[in-house]
């Protein structure tokens, strides 16, 4: 049996309630604790076994040996696109470095599980797209 204007009550109620829209970027939703965002790497614990490289489905992580002085880390701000060079001193323990290709990464966190020394973890950063024409591709 049909009831005309079935949704009338809900519709009229909708006029007086707050909309369900989250006004991103002015409002943001909280991400749950185990959200799979950008991967963070801790060079101090890495032993260079490259299990993460073997298991990555999209060839997004490269582990390589690192010899030499301090790290020169190119930091690109996700919001403004400005490029800064940050110097990180090298302890004797740092022997490896990781390079992530964020455009290739599918954020599955398989590398996090495969790592035997637990030096990779998922952060909650998901705003990884960058604006700006001053972003140049890294030199290979």
């Amino acid at each position, binding site marked *: 049996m049909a009831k005309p204007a079935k949704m009338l009550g809900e519709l009229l109620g909708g006029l007086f309630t707050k909309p369900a829209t989250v006004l991103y970027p002015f409002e943001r939703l909280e*991400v749950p604790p185990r959200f799979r965002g950008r991967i963070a790497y801790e060079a101090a614990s890495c032993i260079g076994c490259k299990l993460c490289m073997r298991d990555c489905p999209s060839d997004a992580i490269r582990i390589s040996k690192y010899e030499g002085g301090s790290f020169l880390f190119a930091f690109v701000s996700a919001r403004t696109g400005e490029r800064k060079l940050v110097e990180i001193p090298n302890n004797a323990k740092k022997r490896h470095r990781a390079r992530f290709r964020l455009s290739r990464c599918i954020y599955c966190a398989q590398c996090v599980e495969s790592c035997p020394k637990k030096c990779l973890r998922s952060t909650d950063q998901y705003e990884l797209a960058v604006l700006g024409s001053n972003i140049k591709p890294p030199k290979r």
Partner: protein
Amino acid sequence: MAQVTIPLGPQHPALKEPGNFLLTLEGEKVVGAKVRVGYNHRGIEKACEARTYLQDIYLIERICGICSHAHTTCFCMAVEELAKAEVPKRAQAIRVLVGELERLHSHLLWLGVAGHEIGFDTLFMYVWKDREHVMDCLELVGGNRVNYAINTIGGVRRDIAPEMKTELLKRLDILEERTKYYVEVGTQEPTLLARCAGVGMLPKDVAIRLGAVGPTLRASGVDMDVRRDDPHLLYGELDFKVITSDRCDVLGRVIVRVLEVLESVKICREVLNNLPEGPIAVKVPRRIPPGEVVTRYEAPRGEDIHYVRSNGTEKPDRVKVRAPTLANWASMAHMLEGGRLADVPITIAAIDPCFSCTDRATIVRDGVWGTLDLHSLRRRS
């Protein structure tokens, strides 16, 4: 009256993914329909052969956004059977939980899309607002709203913590209440009934002959469900009803899907309240002994079949996926012919098509349709 051939697609507002339907119209009546798919072919089966089993899970997951868990579970079940691994009960329970949450997600999404296809944008907005609850549940469990990647070979990757359980149960209660409201809207709103009743008729014998699966088949009165007929995971021990409808039309499919949502909520509650203790995965060696296996799984759209052949290395020899939508296309031409142009979008939407799931292997050689067998295909690659 003169006959006009209108191409519906590959780009068309009615289609969420590219697909082509050549409709021959006489006025508003469809006198001929030709279904052409293949626009979403990405070579996933071939790509699976170049990656290890562990990497293949993520590739298989991305066959489809909404049945991602169904595909990975089916694949993992196949590989575990080849490796003769015994998956712990807790892992199976978590797989069932995520699978039923995914069924909820898929059916609510479908209800909104069906509303949009018949011009009922209000239903679309309301249902998708409630779908956010399911996505939040899945994000809590898996770490991502779509492509939840909870499976690994040998079990699941993440466990369910007690505070997660309370949150999930709370949201399931909200969803159940809202879904009951949508059952009422689906059966009482007169314009919706006018658009869906008597449209896209698929009689019972035709459905069986053309090999339909899933809610499309169950809405034609056929009582078939892989969860009950060929129990996998924990479905043999769970208490749930298989929903069928004798209407054989789009309205029957609406009713079957919405009632299946209510059943899924019940299953999720049952699993959450009775989670078995134990580990969440077993260790499976990287090299899988040679063999071949076929597994079936009840995806939200129907029966999903995976075939995996291993050759003793850590990469599969051949992976074949027969997604449920592929089985439903044959019924599509039958349903479209004899109908009206206005019914075409909702008829297409009623089988819940997933073009991405469908396109596995279609060969066109020099413009002529044909099929190549596996060895000639291998020789060419």
